[in-house]
Each structure stands twice: as C-alpha cells, then as structure tokens.
C-alpha cells in the first residue's frame, strides 16, 4: 500500500461511521441502549427535522471497559401515534447502524454514568462525551 494513502487515511481519522453492521463488528456492549433524540419528521419548527437542538443525556455503564465508540440506530414510526416502530438495529434491517468514535478514549467502570452531548443541527447529528462520573 503506497505510503501516501496511509498518510491520507491517518490524517482523515474518520470519527463518524455509517453502515456499520453491529452484529458483525467485534465489540462489547458497555451500557444499555438509551434514547438520544426524538424528532417529528413531518413537523416543521421546534422538534422537527428542520430544527436545531442541543441535548445532554446520561448512559449508565454496566461493564468495565474502555468506551471506544457510541453506536446509534433509529426507530421509525411510519404511522402517527401507532406506537409501532421499525427498528434499524435488527440483523435484517437494510439500514445498518452508525457509530461515533470517542476521542480521547473513555475508561469506564460499572456503575459510572457518562454524560453525552447531542447537538443536532438541521439533519446533522453528533454525539460527544461530556464527562465521566
């Protein structure tokens, strides 16, 4: 492999991945899944897709380890107030999962609570580690 490509790859240091198949990824789950964001897709204004939000959430660590990434996926409610969601977490979902790498790495112990900042800006989603209690 030419060194130039290695240089480019190292420089870009991709932090946000889409199309990850979590069922095939060698990974250990450190926390239970937590709701990050809820958007009303067909709604304009606050809370809708075309909005700006900055939330903070807490995730409780259940197993000792090092947090390398925050993975996320979607539940899509196709019909209003149906209470039935299509999950993109399932192995058969054609929409795969996504992940944001943590930088720097976050050591975590069972019982710790990690606060995450979730800025959302008109369709762009980011998840960042704020603090580790």
């Amino acid at each position, binding site marked *: *492999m030419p060194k130039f490509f*290695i240089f480019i*790859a*190292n420089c870009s240091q*991709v*932090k*946000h*991945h*889409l*199309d*990850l198949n979590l069922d095939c*990824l*060698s*990974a*250990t*789950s450190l926390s*239970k*899944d*937590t*709701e*990050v964001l809820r*958007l*009303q*897709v*067909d*709604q*304009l204004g606050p809370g809708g*897709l075309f909005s700006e939000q900055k939330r903070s959430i807490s*995730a409780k660590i259940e197993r000792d*380890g090092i*947090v*390398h*990434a*925050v*993975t*996320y*996926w*979607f*539940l*899509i*409610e*196709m019909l*209003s*107030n*149906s209470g039935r*969601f*299509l*999950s*993109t977490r*399932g192995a*058969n*979902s*054609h*929409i795969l999962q996504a*992940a944001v*790498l943590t930088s720097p790495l976050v050591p975590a112990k069972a019982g710790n609570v990690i606060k995450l900042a979730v800025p959302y800006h008109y*369709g*762009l*989603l980011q*998840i960042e580690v704020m603090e580790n209690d």
Partner: protein
Amino acid sequence: MRRRSLLAPEGLIVPHNLVVRCELIESEFLYKCSRVESDSRQIADFINIYEVNSLWTILRRAYHLLLYPENCELSESGY
C-alpha cells in the same frame, strides 16, 4: 403545521417520528480501523467504512421500507 409534500409526494406515507437510540461499546477493531496508524492491512477495512453523518441519508433509505418492508424488523416496544 404539516408539510408532507416536502418529504414525499402526496399520498405516500411519511415517517412520523424518528427516535435515535445509542449504546456505548468497546471495540478495539473499530478504533484501529479508524486510526490506521501505518498498518496497511487495515487500510482495506478503513476504506469500507465511510463517513456520513446526515439523517437525510437515513430518511432517504427509509423510503425503501415502503418498497421492501420484509427486510425490516418491526418492534412495538423499541429495541
């Protein structure tokens, strides 16, 4: 105020709610793939994982649910 025609032609079902859920993971593999650190063997993995962080991509694909619903998992209580 609703504006269905912006996202889909009139008459098509438009996703109503979108809930994002997350989980913290330990994955040295993912971490190393993202930071190649001169290991050419991992370049291939790196190239296969690309960066897109727009929900538009997700929503665009969500319309495939209408065409290929059998490929998607239905959950009543969330996952």
